[in-house]
């Protein structure tokens, strides 16, 4: 097992623990929680085996669900963004993704920001649609999606900046 794999495993565990024990209890303004565990999916290596990646993302979501008693909503949302990650990467980074030379730690701020927004918004739309599961509450779904996404995106960008690796 090389050093990178170990790093990803540690990141997985740390993110789950932080999400479950701290961030699920923030309830900013009564109902807003940031879901920063998606950073694992955002930061996964570009050239990872895609089947394996889908399964890992599903397990990540399921663990969050288990702790939060939320059925399978996080699992569904994680599976969806894991599946659409190549599409998001291609549309944001274009050619440099095709040649697999992208490193999230050394792309420009604008591109990284666009990528995070795309992924987090998709994740939150799926998450809150399934959590509320009622089209008569569509306004509530939109409200929760927008505000939570904002919260998640800000914290995700902060984390990405703060824990940037300077080597590579």
């Amino acid at each position, binding site marked *: 097992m090389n050093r990178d794999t170990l790093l990803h495993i540690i990141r997985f565990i740390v993110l789950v623990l932080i999400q*479950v*024990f701290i961030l699920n209890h923030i*309830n900013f303004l*009564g*109902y807003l*929680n940031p879901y920063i565990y998606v950073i694992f999916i955002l930061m996964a290596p570009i050239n990872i085996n*895609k*089947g394996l990646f*889908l*399964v890992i993302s*599903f397990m990540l*979501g*399921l663990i969050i*669900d*288990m*702790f*939060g*008693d*939320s*059925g*399978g*909503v996080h*699992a*569904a949302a994680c*599976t*969806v963004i894991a*599946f659409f990650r190549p599409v998001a990467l291609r549309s944001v980074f274009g050619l440099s993704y095709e040649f697999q030379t992208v490193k999230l730690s050394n792309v420009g701020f604008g591109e990284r920001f666009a990528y995070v927004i795309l992924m987090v918004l998709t994740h939150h739309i799926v998450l809150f649609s*399934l*959590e*509320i*599961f009622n089209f008569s*509450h569509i306004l*509530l779904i939109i409200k929760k999606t927008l505000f939570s996404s904002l919260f998640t995106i800000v914290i995700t960008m902060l984390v990405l900046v703060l824990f940037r690796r300077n080597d590579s």
Partner: protein
Amino acid sequence: MQQIINFLIKNKRFLLFLLLLCIALIFTIQSHSYHRSKFVSSTNFLSGALYSWQHSVSDYFGLKKENQRLLEENENLRNQLSALGVDSVATKYLDTLSFDKPYTFTKARVIKNDYSKIDNYILINKGEKDSIVPDMGVITDKGIIGIIENTSKNYSRVISILNSNSRINAGLKKSNQYGSLIWNGKDPNIVQLETIPRQAILREGDTIITHGRSTIFPKGIGIGTIASYKLNQNKSYYLIDVKLFNDMSDIGFVYTIKSRDIEEIKSLEN
């Protein structure tokens, strides 16, 4: 045949995606129907143990408030005791038979509590080992909390009254009209009481209590007071907003209620 296999191989990632998504959707749909979300639940040993470990750390910060609450409850119980006449209680002969009462209360500690989602659950640190079974009521000294939904060896999950699947019989304290208590998912301090007939005479501030029409809660456990009320569209029922006695975001200890006669009543009903 060759083509089918080729198709499967070519689309294996998409098929895997569909499979995982279907599993997740099944869990989701199960979690939206009462009493069926058994599979993915925080009562398992890992999350239960982690939560109770976390709680044992954060417990110390609430000790002062918890003490105050217990003192108030003690005061309340002492007043009730003196109203009954202390002598008759003190001279009562206690043997194993006199402990047999219609309802048995067991204390438990809340180790996880949600109130910001649409379907909220509470995790408590008593389980099958302490003879907790599904469909037992859960209360605090102030009022009701919810109903046990799912148990494991050491932990149980309570379906909170702040859950869109929860329906509890409740009624007015001053008359016998009753309806069902639901939650619309908006304010964790306000729940809704439906189907109180329009003949009922209501005033803001009236007390709402459990009604004892099921085996889950005994009659007369407090729920809240009427915050506002209006008639429904065809003017046959009242829709009442009830302000809860409990602060659902701040629950420390709870009591589970076991009814002695539950099996007898159930066998009569079937």
